[in-house]
């Protein structure tokens, strides 16, 4: 029933919620990151540019002296850690650091500065981001360049990135969890509806769902319960109808069979043809009578009805008794000695009828009874009836216990007129006792019917 390729609803909802949370948190995190980065970078740019102007002014003043000492000037510059300065004057370059030379300056900065423009740019220096300012000093025919290492900023940003990414991950995980929880919450009534529907499918009409507080889910539960109620009513009505019809047939049938008995008593007064007709009539009235009995029996089984007192029934005694009453000829009986005192809580009449119907079925359609056994099972007693018929085709195994199933089955229709309800009655009565009846192929051919009943007494 389950479609294998579709993910379960709860998984799908969890994934959807997770992806949604991931998208939202990733968007928030990345914009937070970008904004912070821009803000931090601008702060840094302003600070270093101010520093650069200041330094450039110092340099210019120094270089306007009579004997400018450019390297000395460089030492004078208030340089922080990671700040390097370069001075160009009339094509000559001076640097505070060996690692920074004019070759480290990108042309795109160097040229406009040398042409008289102030430039600030982000570059990479020694593999780390750095800020480069270039300030032309036209009055001394020079230029001041300053490279500030911004590795600290980069580290700050990478930490921020990591934190934001972790937050986004956590948010999407939380989203997935919320999705899963919500779907469980949402599908809980669906699951209980499904479980209830399954119970109803096997005939348990006492099933109803507990009321649900939520308005939308409550609607589902209410309509489900209403449906169960309607279904139950309908089934009961159908059952009552079958019962009522059969009931109405009782009086005319009583007259028919009583009047027929009068005719049978006076059979010798009839002509041979009349006697033949009487025999046909008698046979059919008898069959009709049985059918009505069986219909009543099964419609009674359908009724919820008043509880019948259950009593402990000694199952082996019952089997032997049913066998003794019927005309089944020689039947091998296997009774497990451990079960001699085993009892089943139930209604003797129903159990007797169930067993009798199975035996009649074996005799009528199964070519005769081979063996009847009482076998122990875990917490149960099994009544086994083996016949020597053709067995039951696998396709019919489930349907053979249906009412009037005979006509639809691939099995040969017996000419000795069963009512078509015998096995259905077996199933109803066994179910009434909380047991079940099955049929399978017997080793060596023929069918094996097994009634399993929950044992009550001594094992």
């Amino acid at each position, binding site marked *: 029933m389950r479609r294998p390729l579709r993910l379960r609803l709860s998984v799908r909802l969890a994934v959807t919620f997770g992806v949604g949370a991931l998208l939202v948190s990733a968007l928030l995190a990345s914009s937070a990151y970008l904004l912070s980065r821009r803000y931090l970078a601008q702060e840094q740019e302003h600070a270093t540019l101010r520093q650069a102007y200041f330094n450039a002014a110092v340099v210019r003043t120094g270089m306007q002296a009579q004997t400018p000492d450019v390297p000395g000037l460089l030492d004078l510059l208030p340089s922080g850690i990671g700040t390097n300065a370069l001075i160009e004057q009339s094509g000559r370059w001076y640097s505070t650091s060996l690692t920074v030379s004019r070759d480290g300056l990108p042309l795109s900065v160097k040229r406009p500065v040398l042409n008289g423009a102030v430039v600030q740019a982000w570059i990479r220096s020694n593999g780390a981001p750095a800020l480069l300012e270039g300030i032309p000093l036209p009055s001394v025919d020079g230029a001041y360049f300053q490279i500030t290492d911004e590795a600290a900023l980069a580290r700050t940003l990478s930490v921020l990135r990591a934190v934001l990414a972790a937050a986004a991950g956590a948010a999407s995980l939380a989203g997935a969890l919320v999705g899963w929880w919500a779907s469980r919450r949402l599908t809980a009534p669906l699951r209980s509806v499904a479980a209830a529907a399954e119970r109803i499918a096997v005939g348990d009409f006492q099933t109803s769902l507990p009321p649900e507080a939520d308005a939308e889910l409550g609607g589902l539960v209410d309509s489900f319960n209403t449906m169960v109620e309607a279904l139950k009513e309908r089934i009961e009505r159908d059952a009552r109808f079958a019962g009522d019809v059969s009931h109405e047939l009782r*009086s005319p049938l009583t*007259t028919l069979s*009583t*009047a027929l008995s009068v005719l049978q*008593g*006076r059979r010798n007064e009839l002509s041979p043809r009349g006697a033949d007709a009487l025999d046909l009539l008698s046979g059919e009235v008898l069959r009709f*009578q049985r059918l009505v009995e069986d219909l009543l029996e099964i419609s009674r089984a359908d009724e919820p*009805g*008043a509880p019948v007192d259950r009593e402990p029934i000694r199952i082996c005694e019952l089997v032997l008794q049913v066998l003794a009453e019927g005309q089944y000829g020689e039947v091998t009986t296997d009774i497990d000695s451990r079960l001699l005192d085993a009892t089943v809580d139930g209604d003797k009449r129903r159990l007797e009828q169930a067993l009798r119907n199975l035996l009649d079925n074996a005799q009528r359609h199964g070519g005769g009874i081979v063996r009847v056994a009482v076998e122990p099972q875990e917490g149960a007693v099994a009544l086994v009836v083996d016949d020597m018929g053709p067995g039951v085709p696998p396709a019919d195994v489930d349907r053979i216990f249906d009412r009037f199933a005979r006509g639809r089955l691939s099995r040969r229709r017996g000419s000795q007129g069963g009512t078509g309800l015998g096995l259905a009655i077996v199933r109803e009565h066994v179910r009434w006792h909380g047991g079940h009846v099955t049929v399978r192929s017997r080793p060596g051919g023929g069918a094996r019917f097994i009634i399993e009943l929950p044992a009550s007494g001594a094992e």
Partner: protein
Amino acid sequence: MDAVPDSVLVVDDDDRIRASLRLALEDNGYRVIDAADAESALELIARDVPDIVLLDLMLPGIDGFECCRRIRREHDMPILVVSARADSHDVVAGLEAGADDYIRKPFDMPELTARIRALRRRLQPAAVADGTTELQGAGVWVAPERGEVRVDGEPVHLTKTEFRLLLEFMQHPGRVYTREVLLDRVWEYGYFGDPRIVDVHIGRLRAKIEADTANPTRVVTVRGFGYKFDA
């Protein structure tokens, strides 16, 4: 069969059933009187007491249960209830109203006549195998041939079936009877009867001979088996 045929009163509101039963029972040698409702049945019984009553439970006016109770107030002839309804409550209620047995519609004529014969036999004085004329036990005294019963010295009136049941128990005090055996020996049906008949009759018998029906000391239940008479 006696020179005077047994009379059977058929009470049923269905004319055709009455007509067919009359034909069938007369062919079996019974004298048949019939009534379509309880009132006329009670009138008939007042004038001409039948040997056996065949009573449908579903009657217009006074229903079969009430009719059964009214007959029982004055008569102990066997009453066979004909139940058109299949459910067991009606059956038990009919038996509790005083019927001796029930048969379900539609029935086979041979089955009906077998039951009538069995009921008929209870009309004869009970014969005890060794010719004992009195039995006694647990404060109960029985004279089989006269059909008399005394409990702690007080005379008690039992129906024919209740009497047979008590007699069976008293002949074998201490013996545990299953319902089936009782059906066989008292109702004489073999295994064909409904065990509930036995239970209802045991209940009625207890009501007449036990001091406390909730805690019977004479006819006691053996759970899972049946009943026995504690002498």
